[in-house]
């Protein structure tokens, strides 16, 4: 940065030339180009939505939605479906936590093959290779679980075990298990090493170090992530219903295909309530347990 000797009528310093003119032009231009291209490609047409025609259509549709169908018969069924969706998200999250906990040990670098627990290590080459292999395998498994969209998992399991919320539980469990597993492993890899060194010097085995040194430190963070994930899962449980995993999602699909708009509104209200409840529960538990 140009620095001039301090004197009251000195030449005024120029703005810093951190990035060249071209560079600081490229980024906004690039973003603008991306947006324009996307605008085009998605046939983004606000007019069709907000223009006279579009508005009229939306208004007619909105009018068809009201009033929500509040007959006792339907309300009872909706309550059941809501609980079904809740159950799906709940069990799915639990399953994912179980999977993540199983895979986190081998998927954490500092527990499997590198870091302070392995510095003074006389294991032979084959053992070391096996450990590395274990790590790679665990990480790959987590990646696989995460990458396959939950909806694809759901389709697979519907294919395997039939319709209903069970395939939804499996799908959520596997997919979220991959996500949580990676997050858990990152938490484990980030912990301080001194307490582990101390434990190691007392002659504790690696597994003991994990249980006494690592787990107490990471469990609160695990719990926090799991609760956050539950908030996401309740929404995903609804999406999975579309492919046959039951619950409110499936009912939404049925209501739309059969043009039962009043029922649809009731379902939407139930969804809103369900999601809000889970959000609150998750926040409450996070406050209380952490």
């Amino acid at each position: 940065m140009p620095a001039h000797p301090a004197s009251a009528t000195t030449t005024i310093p120029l703005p810093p030339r951190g990035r060249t003119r071209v560079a600081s032009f490229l980024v906004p231009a690039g973003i603008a180009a991306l947006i324009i291209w996307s605008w085009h490609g998605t046939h983004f047409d606000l007019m069709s939505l907000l223009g006279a025609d579009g508005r009229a259509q939306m208004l007619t549709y909105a009018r068809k939605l009201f009033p929500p169908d509040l007959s006792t018969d339907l309300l009872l069924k909706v309550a059941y479906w809501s609980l079904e969706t809740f159950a799906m998200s709940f069990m799915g999250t639990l399953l994912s936590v179980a999977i993540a906990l199983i895979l986190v040990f081998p998927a954490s670098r500092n527990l499997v093959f590198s870091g302070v627990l392995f510095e003074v290590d006389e294991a032979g080459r084959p053992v070391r290779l096996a450990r590395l292999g274990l790590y790679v395998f665990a990480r790959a498994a987590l990646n696989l679980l995460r990458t396959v969209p939950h909806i694809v998992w759901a389709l697979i399991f519907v294919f395997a075990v039939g319709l209903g919320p069970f395939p939804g539980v499996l799908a959520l469990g596997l997919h979220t298990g991959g996500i949580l597993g990676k997050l858990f492993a990152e938490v484990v890899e980030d912990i301080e090493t001194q307490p582990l060194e101390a434990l190691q010097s007392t002659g504790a085995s690696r597994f003991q170090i994990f249980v006494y040194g690592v787990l107490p430190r990471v469990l609160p963070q695990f719990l926090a992530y799991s609760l956050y994930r539950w908030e996401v899962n309740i929404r995903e449980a609804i999406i999975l219903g579309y492919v046959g995993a039951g619950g409110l999602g499936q009912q939404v699909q049925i209501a739309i295909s059969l043009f039962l708009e009043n029922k649809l509104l009731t379902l939407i209200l139930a969804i809103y309530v369900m999601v809000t409840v889970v959000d609150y529960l998750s926040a409450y538990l996070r406050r209380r347990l952490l």
Partner: protein
Amino acid sequence: MPSNPSLAALPFSHRSKSHFPILFGICFAVAFMGSWQLAQIQPGLLFETEGRRNIAKFITGMFPPDLSPEFLRFLVVPLFETIQISVMGTVLAVAIGFPLGLLGTASLAYTGILHEVEIGGSRARRLTRALPYILVRSVLSVFRCIPEFVWAFMFVRAVGLGPFPGVLAIGISYGGMLGKVYSEILENLAVQPSEALQATGASRWKVLLYGMLPHAMPQLVSYTLYRWECAVRASAILGFIGAGGLGQQIELSMRMFNFHEVITLVLILFLLVAAVDFLSAKARKAIV
């Protein structure tokens, strides 16, 4: 909660909080058992011959993945579509979330140092300022608590199939999320710079522009980029219900049991998400 003096004399402390673990345990057990029933969990199904056969069929069907040039070329359009949906969806979400987020910021709307002298104790005036705030907050809540999938369904009815309803669905539901998080970021800013700016006679808008936004910009952009990453995944999923992109292709391939195509699509999706993650991480580092 003050503990009863006589209880405090006991060797172990009996604070009223001690009921919580038991209560929690009971609730958890009930929830677990109830959910097991409701979700119709039957692990046995996975191991029945039918189930195992289907899974095996699926896994063997996936390999080798279809990597033929025609198929790959064919996938370019859906791939672009997914990217485009995520970009436009995020843009729309910012367009919705940013103004609503500003209006839903308590420290701008009706409390805090920016309003001390003007509102002070007058309850009536405080209320009239709080009303739009409450309204905006409720709207944001509705936007974000209804999953994009439901929004997409409704928009497909309103504007037809294709990527557009997907954009709208992501725009609205993510707009709700962005709005809420933006307002939280702004509300948590240090208050002194704003107080100083206000003392120079600046109006609320200028205090916002000079004092709050530059301060908050890294956090705002960072979260927006994170939302874009989520939008990429979401637009793939919305494809399932006809909103175009890779998701729609996955659905088609699954329906026709072309598992070798499915795995290719999943691989492409994986690469796309990884690329977006990478870009967004770089961008976030550059902002600071």
